[in-house]
């Protein structure tokens, strides 16, 4: 079983209903050393990354759109790699998402965001977030230290 060594890989069609089954498999492999809160945040960060790819990377819902997620634990960090061949993340978007989206005024309801939190959550959850465009592929590397 993949769960024994906390590593695994899963390829899904780029569709919202495919995310939860992948998340179930991922969650089973997140080491218990992280505790419930961090385990939730790791799952959340990956789900947000996948949602972002499905929404923005494949806006025309190509039938052949696939996303591959692989993960492994090296004793110090849980590392997740997300690859797809959709549109690239626009330059600077990931950096721009670092934090400030949560700095809204909670007293002004109209200003409270209903969307656009995904990449900020990815940045907040993981210790390292690295994005590369390799030819026609996107590769997002995420890692969370114990």
């Amino acid at each position: 079983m993949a769960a024994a060594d906390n590593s695994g890989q899963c390829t899904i069609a780029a569709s919202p209903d495919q995310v939860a089954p992948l998340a179930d498999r991922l969650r089973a492999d997140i080491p218990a050393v992280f505790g419930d809160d961090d385990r939730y945040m790791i799952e959340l960060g990956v789900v947000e990354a996948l949602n972002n790819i499905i929404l923005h990377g494949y806006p025309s819902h190509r039938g052949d759109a696939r996303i591959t997620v692989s993960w492994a634990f090296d004793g110090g960090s849980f590392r997740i790699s997300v690859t797809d061949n959709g549109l690239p993340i626009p330059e600077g978007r990931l950096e721009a998402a670092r934090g400030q989206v949560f700095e809204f005024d909670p007293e002004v309801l109209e200003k409270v965001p209903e969307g656009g939190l995904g990449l900020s959550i990815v940045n907040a959850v993981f210790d390292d977030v690295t994005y590369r465009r390799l030819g026609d592929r996107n590769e997002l590397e995420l890692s969370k230290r114990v």
Partner: protein
Amino acid sequence: MNIIDITKQGEVAVVSLVVRRLDASNALAFKEAMVARIAGGDRRLVLDLAGVDFIDSSGLGAIVSVLKNLGGNGNLTICNLKGPVLNLFKLTRMDKVFTIVDSTEAAVARAGS
């Protein structure tokens, strides 16, 4: 797809989710079901998240949208959040936006007052 169960306690509609995850696959259905209830006259709402293990930012956005839909005429109180889900509210500062209480009884009392 039926996504919510509603029980009335006096003027207060207590809404429970019948799914364990509120995410990009069902957030719109949730929002539409809630907005339909609001349009039907339920404006004192309790959202009981006892059965919910996971919410992502789409789900969170849908709950924000419900609050905005009330437009200041009514209220929405959230109760029975599991610890990790509450952490999502804190991370995104949504714990400052919503009234969050520990129990259904406290939520109904708050919503009905």
